[in-house]
């Protein structure tokens, strides 16, 4: 049975300064890295002889418009089926440079997950074989999951957040 501390220590020993912000919310090991290190990091985890993180559970993104310099966060969920151990990797990107390397070379499943993330957030996955919109139509010229597109009709001034929530 792997522990969070043990896996975290191995990753720190291998990558040193490049991995930061270790945390374990609800007992799921979480840490951040830079976009330069994300492919080496995930291929290290995938090919590690004992950990064998051979399953990419999910790729998604989160938009934090208020945190300057860290507007976008791409989140990877990995799963080691052999050890039954999950972890979460975050990569923060700035709003004016939303490029990140693709994961399609390591996992075939990354293809549509990255297309979905591109479609909804406009994160550009460099090296992706076919980065097109997947759920929305091609003609769309904005990225709907970004926080600057509110769900409610913006011409309504009576529906204020104080009364109706976010």
């Amino acid at each position: 049975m792997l522990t969070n501390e043990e896996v975290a220590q191995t990753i720190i020993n291998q990558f040193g300064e490049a991995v930061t912000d270790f945390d374990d919310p609800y007992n799921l090991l979480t840490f951040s890295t830079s976009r330069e290190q994300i492919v080496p990091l995930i291929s290290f985890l995938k090919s590690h002889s004992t950990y064998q993180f051979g399953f990419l559970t999910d790729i998604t993104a989160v938009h934090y418009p208020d945190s300057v310099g860290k507007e976008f966060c791409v989140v990877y969920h990995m799963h080691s089926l052999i050890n039954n151990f999950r972890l979460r990797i975050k990569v923060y990107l700035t709003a004016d440079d939303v490029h990140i390397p693709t994961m399609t070379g390591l996992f075939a499943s990354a293809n549509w997950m990255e297309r979905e993330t591109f479609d909804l957030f406009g994160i550009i996955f460099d090296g992706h074989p076919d980065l097109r919109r997947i759920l929305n139509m091609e003609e769309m010229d904005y990225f709907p999951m970004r926080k600057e597109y509110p769900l409610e009709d913006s011409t309504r001034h009576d529906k204020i957040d104080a009364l109706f929530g976010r």
Partner: protein
Amino acid sequence: MVSEELDIANKNLPAEQGPIQYVNELTTLNLGPTHPATHGIFQNVLQMDGEKIVSGEQTIGYIHRAFEKIAERRPFYQITTLTDRMNYCSSPINNMGWHMTVEKLLGIEIPKRAQYIRVIMMELARLADHLICNGILGVDTGAFTGFLYIYQERENIYEIYEEVCGARLTTNMGRIGGMERDLSPTAIRKIKELIPRFRKVLTEFENLFNRNRIFMDRVIGVGGISAERALSYGFTGPNLRAAGVDYDVRVMNPYSSYEDFEFDIPIGQSGDTYDRFMVRNAEMWQSLRIIEQAINNLPEGSYYADAPQYYLPPKQEVYKNMEALIYHFKIVMGEIDAPAGEVYHAVEGGNGELGFYLISDGGRAPYRLHFRRPCFIYYQAYPEMCKGLTLSDAIVIMSSMNVIAGELDA
């Protein structure tokens, strides 16, 4: 052979017309968006060389309803109705998965009785889901009888849903913190009656299909995928187990007291359509085992947790009790704030690992909610699986993958 036929045809043509040239070009075939055999709204543009599929390109998103965006404005308990509409063949699993995600965020421990009721409802949902998938697979191979045999049982399962939550398809079952009502004596009787009757019908269904030569010829060796490719493609659920990987969220990360029950994980070998069919059948037997254990050992006690801030109080209480009225008002108006946190919770859905990635910033609605929809992820393997096969094989593979349009597009 084609060129020989052309030579014969050219011999009979008048000389001044010139010979017919054989041009090797592909036919483009639109399978969908609305086609009776696709069981949902998704399009496949297939390149066909005669009868063989050379390549395929999928277009999805025809029923994209932006659930993730809608969820960012809704109070937590209103998001349950969104999860109903994802995999609508097994809505209770989605509902329970969402409730458990929120309970994990809030740190609520729910009573054993509620957990057992949830297990019963989730396994009934799994039965309904696999019934539809395998029944339709039979219909797509031309065997209508099996489908009719088992569809009566789906109706009976839906009657149990009605008894437990009042709805049939989009169930909105349960509450954050437990169930909205206890299992009624009628519900218990119906569940207990269902188990032996279902076993009989399932035996008949298996007798019709499992060693049926016509069916076996249509499905064995069709659409196989290796375990390695399946894992790379993010397969989960019965499709992954058919390829020989015994990954089941119920066993690996037990939730809702699944560790109390004894059941097996059926696996296949080659990951072809026949294996997927057999794994689903075997899983139905295991689901029946779980339901039987749960209903016979149903613990006494409350069916909801003591979490008045989050659990919608029973309606009778609201009329008599001041606190219940206040909480009722606050919950319904969405005035309850959840603590800040970040949760990933996975349940074994009808067709794979259904994950909920929830980020709360301490407000009344999620800051971000992402659904890991299993069939969205594994459906991308479809062109690879039907390459080199015929169109009729492609239809059978699609049925056996259990792709649900509502979940695909979310």
